[in-house]
């Protein structure tokens, strides 16, 4: 019954930026990914000096942007102790919808808005089902994953959109940038900063952490549980929609299979980035770093001459490693807290 008896489920601490040792653990957690990432890139560069050329850096960033965007949205949902598995399907359907609109001569900006709106719409559906249905999010969003994918197939059939169908300005937006920094990366960083600021600096964002940390306490404290869950799912859906539009701009090639299986990559990135699946902790910066790490591996392996068939296995190892690190840290923290409690108690008794 004492809180100290419960092993901490996750590396604790919040984004409050305080100096407690739990917070330091959290910061180390994000720092650890950064260190792994930098080491990997430096080692690759030493092995293959062409790796971090301007084009190389640009490719690295371009590859990461879409996963980072979806990962930021997913992190917001996972922080509330839920999950959204439909992001891959949403990405696919919004990319195709934007493509159809642009092929018909539509305005590119409006095309992006349409993709975001479609994503947000599916976010509303997911959010309502999860918050009203009292059904585990895993099951609900697995259901919507298949439903949306099914709609996708029925609507588009075997049609395809290629770069030739799209306005050149839109395709250019997907490739160009400020030197080595692509426009897509600029946009993604902007979204990332806004999301992180919202989570840290607004009541709504803080409520998401509260909700994930203890749903029962959140209810008793008068947190608007449904509204906040809905917000998280809408944000997640909208970002998946945006990612769909950017996918279209970047690859110019969309069919009914686009985004298939993407949800698992996204969840891996989020978890590798230190957002605990048990809710209440982690940050979108961590999730973004996790996404960057996973996509970088895709570029690193060919650069050092390893066959890309290893990519998935290595992603899996990273995922397990991340979870193992979380678990070890959690046990260590729980032991520290217990020791501390024991010390204060024996101090009382002396």
């Amino acid at each position: 019954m004492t809180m100290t008896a419960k092993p901490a489920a996750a590396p604790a601490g919040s984004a409050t930026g305080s100096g407690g040792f739990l917070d330091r653990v959290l910061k180390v957690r994000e720092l650890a990914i950064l260190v792994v990432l930098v080491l990997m890139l430096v080692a690759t560069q030493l092995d293959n000096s062409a790796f971090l050329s301007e084009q190389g850096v640009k490719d690295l960033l371009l590859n990461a942007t879409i996963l980072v965007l979806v990962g930021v949205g997913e992190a917001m949902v996972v922080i509330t102790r839920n999950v959204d598995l439909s992001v891959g399907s949403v990405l696919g359907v919004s990319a195709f919808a934007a493509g159809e609109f642009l092929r018909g001569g539509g305005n590119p900006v409006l095309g992006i808005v349409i993709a975001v709106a479609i994503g947000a719409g599916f976010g509303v559906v997911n959010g309502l089902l999860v918050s009203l249905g009292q059904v585990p999010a895993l099951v609900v969003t697995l259901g919507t994953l298949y439903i949306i994918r099914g709609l996708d197939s029925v609507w588009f059939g075997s049609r395809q959109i290629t770069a030739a169908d799209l306005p050149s300005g839109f395709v250019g937006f997907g490739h160009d940038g400020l030197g080595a920094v692509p426009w897509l990366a600029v946009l993604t960083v902007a979204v990332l900063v806004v999301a992180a600021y919202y989570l840290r600096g607004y009541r709504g964002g803080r409520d998401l952490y509260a909700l994930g940390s203890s749903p029962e306490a959140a209810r008793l404290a008068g947190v608007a549980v449904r509204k906040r869950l809905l917000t998280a799912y809408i944000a997640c859906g909208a970002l998946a929609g945006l990612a769909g539009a950017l996918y279209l701009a970047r690859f110019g090639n969309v069919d009914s299979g686009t985004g298939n299986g993407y949800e698992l990559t996204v969840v891996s990135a989020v978890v590798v980035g230190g957002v605990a699946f048990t809710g209440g902790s982690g940050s979108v910066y961590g999730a973004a770093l996790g996404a960057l790490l996973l996509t970088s591996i895709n570029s690193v392996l060919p650069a050092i001459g390893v066959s890309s068939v290893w990519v998935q296995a290595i992603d899996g190892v990273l995922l397990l490693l991340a979870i193992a690190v979380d678990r070890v840290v959690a046990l260590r923290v729980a032991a520290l807290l217990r020791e501390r409690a024991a010390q204060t108690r024996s101090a009382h008794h002396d």
Partner: protein
Amino acid sequence: MTDPVPERTPVLALEGVSKSFGAVRALRDVSLRLYAGEAHALAGENGAGKSTLIKTLAGVHRPDTGSVLIDGEPVVLHGPADARDAGVAVIYQEPTLFPDLSVAENIYVGRQPRRSLGRVDHRAMREAAAALFARLGVDLDPERPARGLSIADQQLVEIAKALSFDARVLIMDEPTAALTGSEVARLFGVVRALRESGAAVLFISHRLEEVFALCQRVTTLRDGAWIATEPVEGLTEDDLVRRMVGRDLDELYPKQKTELGDVALSVRRLTREGVFTDVSFEVRHGEIVALAGLVGAGRSEVARAIFGVDRWDAGEVEVDGRRLKPGAPSLAMAAGLALVPEDRRAQGLVMDMSIARNINLTGLRATSRAGLMDRGAERSRAVDWAVRLQVKYARLADVVGTLSGGNQQKVVLAKWLSTDPRVLVVDEPTRGIDVGTKAEVHRLLSRLAADGLAVLMISSDLPEVLGMADRVLVMHEGRLAAEIARADATEESVMAAATGRTRSAA
């Protein structure tokens, strides 16, 4: 209804409120009026409906019939936020904090101070929390996460939360259960100040002397029904107990005299770091030993460790001379140990399974042949025990979740007694069950002890501890603080040891 001050308008009131959960009628036509500047006590046994009443006032439950009135106007509270906005602060018995968030955020969740553009002002929040703690006279870092706080500290955070918005109504559900004497005195000081500045207070405590010290009026509930509302002045503790229990205590605690046998359970220097330390005691065949103490003192954790659910770090446990291994519940069961856990819904039963299946969870080996379950044997084993314990059910195939709390508890007992245990550990055996069934459970425990079973009973219900136990062990902050013989055990001696006011060596 006799209400001595009918002219004033109550700040918060319930009129004719009923509330049922399935077949359980938690509240029946209950009325309650809270006035500004008055501390009102709510008395009643465990399971009398106090918690349901509080949750109705807090907007967690909506009444089935009857209404909630604020300043005399009927209102519908759609949720805890509505109650909070109306100025109702609730401190629950079990602190409800967010382990991952900082202490300051726990206090201000949903109401964080804001600066321009609606941004949370973290610094102002921190300073306000620090100011609250200064006012309470406690030394707590607003920056640290709530994870790992002691129960007393968690309680203080809850109190700070209630202070943080100028509550017109302060509801406290056993706020002192985990506090020491000086902490209680400090809390009462704060509550009196709040009351004098015009707040209404609803106070629940099993320590009757606190009711008399703090409150002006008292409402008594029994089995979900309103019994009386009266001024505290002129009442004695005995009067109040009689209203709460509704019958003589002897009838509720039918303790038989038994012959003590050999040592059945022997626990020596058991330690789990940071949870409990150096716990040693013995329980003999035929003996009921109570393990008393405050919530969070480590009693349930000791039981869990003995049974092998949690590992222990040091010490040893023997059942009838056989040493148990740490962290091995199936070995403990084989040695003749049975544990009726504290939370029967989550730990004692599989709520969606039938009565028969639940009882047979401990007898899967006994009722199977060549690895296949024998339905007939399963059924007869279940019937045998269900009848012996007088479980009230329609069919054995009914889902256990449809039974009342008392009957559910009997199913848990049946499940364990059917293993023919040598030592029975029961954790809060009568929490949340009605008075009638409670007496039946007590009679059963007493009879089992008379038949030679060794019983270790964890209970927060003091009359139960005093009425049933041959010996009382009292825990305080993870240690055995006292061992009190039946003849010497009184509410005062047990509470004094439980709150750390006396420390006679165990």
